[in-house]
C-alpha cells in the first residue's frame, strides 16, 4: 500500500528492525495510543479465525495486515446481507467472527449462537463513538428512528439472549463501521439538480430507477420516499404498523407496475453494474459502490437529500463456540481492528470508523479533512487501493461527519411486524 507517510504507517516489523529498544518504547507508549503500533500477543500466532460478512469490510487487505501484525490467519467469506443472517442462525459452527449489521444482529441474537464480549477486555472501548454507547452522536442530538445500534448493543451477561436497555459490561458486538446512506445518481444522465427522495418515483426516470431487494433496508428507502411525497405519515419508520406497510407497498407496487424500475439489486456489485452501464440513473446505493463507479471514470454522486439520510452500522461479534486460545485471539484481533489501521482503511473508502480518533492516526491530514471534516481536498484523494477518487479541490458529497450523521432520519431496522412486512415485500417483488 502506497499510503500516508506519517510515522503511524510503520509496521511492527519496521520498528523491530530499528532496534528492540524503540519497539519496546512503542509498546509501552501504545497503552495511551500514541499512534505507534502495539506489540500484540505472541501466543496467538498462526491461530486461524473464520470471519464472514458483507463485501463492505471483508477485504483481503485486512487479512494480510492481520497476518503481518498479529500473525493470525484470517479467513474471510463475503456474503450478501440476508445470507449473513442465515449463516449465524443455521451454521453456528461454521464461523468464529460474524461481521454483521446491527439490524441483522437484532434478528439473530436471540438464537444464542453468538456470545457477548467482556467490555473490560476491550482496549479501545473509550474511543468508540457515542452512537454505539448511549446512542447520542453529540450530547444534544436526538436519536433517529429504527434499530439504532445502541438499542441492541448491550446484554445482561455472558449467557443472555436478550438486549439490555442501559449500558452494561457485556457488548453484543463491537462496532466497527457505520455510514449515512442516500440515493446515488448519474448527474450526466439526469442533467438537473436532485434534492429529494421523491425523485426515485419521478416518472421522468421511468425504467431507469432501482431499489435494493433486501427487505429490511428496502422498506426504509421506500418509507423515506413515501414520507417525502407526503403520501404516508409514519409514527415510526423503524417500526411501522401494518397499515403503514400496506400504504408504502401499494405506492411502490403501483410504480413497479407502471415500469418505474429497471431492476432490483441484491449485492453491491449488481448496483455498481446497473449504474455504470447506464441502465439505471437513480437508485438506492451504498457509499463504496459510488466510489467504484467513479473510479471507472463515470460521474456518480451520493446525493444528499433534504429529508435526510438512512443510516446503518456494523460490527464484529463472536461465535458461541469460540473458546480458549481462539477466543483470546479473537479479542486480540478485535482490539487490533479498533486500533486504527482498519479504521483508516474504511474511512478512506467513505465509511466512518466506530473509533474515529484511532483511525485519524492512519490518515493524512488532508484525507482526514476531506473524509471526516468535509473540507476541500488539498491534493488528489487516493483510495486505499491506489485509485484516484477525487481531484484536489473536491468536497465530499454531503459535507462533514456531523452534517451527514447529524442528519440521519432512520436506521436500518427489524420491526415488530417483520413477518408481515417480509410477506408484503415479497408480494411487491413478485407483483
Amino acid at each position, binding site marked *: 500500500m502506497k499510503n500516508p507517510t506519517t510515522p503511524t504507517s510503520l509496521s511492527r516489523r519496521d520498528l523491530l528492525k530499528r532496534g528492540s529498544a524503540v519497539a519496546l518504547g512503542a509498546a509501552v507508549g501504545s497503552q495511551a495510543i500514541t499512534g505507534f503500533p502495539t506489540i500484540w500477543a505472541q501466543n496467538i500466532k498462526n491461530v486461524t479465525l473464520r470471519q464472514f460478512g458483507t463485501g463492505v469490510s471483508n477485504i483481503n487487505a485486512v487479512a494480510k495486515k492481520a497476518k503481518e501484525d498479529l500473525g493470525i490467519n484470517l479467513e474471510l467469506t463475503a456474503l450478501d446481507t440476508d445470507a449473513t443472517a*442465515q449463516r449465524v*442462525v443455521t451454521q453456528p459452527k461454521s464461523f468464529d467472527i460474524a461481521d454483521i449489521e446491527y439490524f441483522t444482529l437484532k434478528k*439473530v441474537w436471540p438464537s444464542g449462537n453468538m456470545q457477548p464480549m467482556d467490555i473490560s477486555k476491550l482496549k479501545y472501548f473509550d474511543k468508540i463513538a457515542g452512537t454505539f454507547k448511549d446512542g447520542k452522536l453529540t450530547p444534544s442530538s436526538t436519536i433517529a428512528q429504527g434499530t439504532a445500534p445502541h438499542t441492541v448493543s448491550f446484554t445482561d451477561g455472558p449467557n443472555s439472549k436478550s438486549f439490555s436497555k442501559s449500558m452494561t459490561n457485556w457488548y453484543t458486538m463491537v462496532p466497527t463501521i457505520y455510514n449515512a446512506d442516500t440515493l446515488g445518481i448519474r448527474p450526466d444522465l439526469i442533467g438537473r439538480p436532485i434534492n429529494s427522495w421523491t425523485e426515485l418515483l419521478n416518472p421522468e426516470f421511468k425504467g431507469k430507477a432501482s431499489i435494493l431487494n433486501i427487505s429490511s433496508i428496502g422498506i426504509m428507502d421506500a418509507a423515506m420516499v413515501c414520507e417525502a411525497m407526503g403520501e404516508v405519515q409514519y409514527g415510526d419508520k423503524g417500526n411501522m404498523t401494518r397499515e403503514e406497510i400496506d400504504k408504502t407497498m401499494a405506492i411502490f407496487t403501483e410504480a413497479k407496475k407502471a415500469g418505474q*424500475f429497471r431492476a432490483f439489486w441484491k449485492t453491491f456489485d*449488481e448496483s455498481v453494474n446497473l449504474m455504470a452501464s447506464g*441502465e439505471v440513473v437513480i437508485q438506492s446505493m451504498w457509499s463504496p459502490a459510488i466510489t467504484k463507479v467513479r473510479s471507472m471514470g463515470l460521474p456518480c454522486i451520493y446525493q444528499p437529500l433534504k429529508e435526510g439520510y438512512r443510516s446503518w452500522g456494523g460490527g464484529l461479534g463472536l461465535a458461541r463456540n469460540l473458546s480458549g486460545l481462539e477466543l483470546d485471539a479473537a479479542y486480540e484481533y478485535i482490539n487490533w481492528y479498533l486500533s486504527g489501521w482498519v479504521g483508516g482503511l474504511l474511512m478512506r473508502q467513505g465509511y466512518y470508523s466506530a473509533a474515529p480518533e484511532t483511525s485519524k492516526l492512519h490518515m493524512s491530514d488532508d484525507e482526514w479533512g476531506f473524509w471526516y471534516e468535509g473540507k476541500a481536498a488539498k491534493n488528489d484523494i487516493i483510495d486505499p487501493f491506489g485509485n484516484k477518487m477525487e481531484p484536489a479541490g473536491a468536497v465530499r458529497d454531503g459535507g462533514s461527519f456531523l452534517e451527514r450523521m447529524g442528519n440521519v432520519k432512520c436506521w436500518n431496522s427489524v420491526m415488530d411486524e417483520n*413477518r408481515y412486512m417480509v410477506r408484503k415485500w415479497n408480494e411487491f417483488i*413478485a407483483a
Partner: protein
Amino acid sequence: MDHKSPLSTLLQISPISLILGFFLVLPIGTILIVSFWDYNDFSFFPDFVWTNYSDALGSNVTYKTYLNTFWYAGLTWLFTFLIGFTVAYFLAFHIHTTRWQIVLFLICTIPFWTSNIIRMISWIPFLGRNGVFNTMLQSIGLIDEPLEFLLFSDFSIVLAFVHLYALFMVVPIFNSMMRIDRSLIEAAIDGGAHGWQMLTNVVIPLCKPGIAIGSIFVVTLVMGDYITVRLMGGGQRASVGVMMWNEISLLLYPAAAAHAVVLLAVVLIMVSLIVRVVDLKKEL
C-alpha cells in the same frame, strides 16, 4: 440363466437403493417434515402446523407466480422444441457420414464448455440499454431509441432459458431419429408421401420418446430455476424458484419447504402427463 440366490439379488440392488435413499428419499423426506414445522424471525422448530401450506396456497401471489413460471416453461419448451427438432433433423437426415454427424454434434455442445452462469451473464452487456445490440441497431439507423425490452424482461429470461436448454432437446430427439429405420422413410416416399406428410406421419411419431425425454428435461429445469429468472429479470420477475429463494434468504425455511413440496407435486403431475401422452416404456 443361473438361478440367483436372494443374497446376490440383495447385493445387486443395494448400490442403487443406497444412492437413491441417501440422495433422493432422505432429502425429500426432510423437506416434507420441515414443511410442517413452525418458525419465527430467527429460527424454526419442530411442530405440526398447516400454516405453511395455507399461507402458500391461500395467497394470490403464489398463483400468479405459478402462472408466470408456466408461461416461461411453455415458451421455453416451444422454442427449444422447434430449435431442437430442426437441428436434430438436419444432423440425422441431411448429414450422411457418421464422422460429420459427430463433428457437428460436438459443435452444438461448445457453448456448454462454459458454466451456465457465465453464458447467462454474457447476455447482459449484449442486450443492455447501451449494449452491443442496441448500439448496433442505432448505428445502422434501424431504431432511434434503444429497445428497453431486450434486457430485464420476459424476453431476456426466455432467451437465456432457450440458450441454456436447447441442447437438452437436441440430444434425445437426435437419438430417436437415428433409430428410425431408413427403409420406413423410403417406403413412405415410394408410397407417394411428400415431405410434410413424411414428417408428420413417420418421423414425428417415431421421435415421440425423444421429444418426451427432451420435454421432461426442459420443463423440470425451467420449473425449478431461480438464478436465470433473477439475473435476466433484473430481480423484478417472479418464478416459483425465486419465491422460494426469497423465503430461504429471509430464514423462512418451513415456508420454503412447503413451496418445495407443492412444486414437486406440480412437476410430478406435469411429467406424468407427458409420460401419459408417450408411453416411454413401450417406445424404448
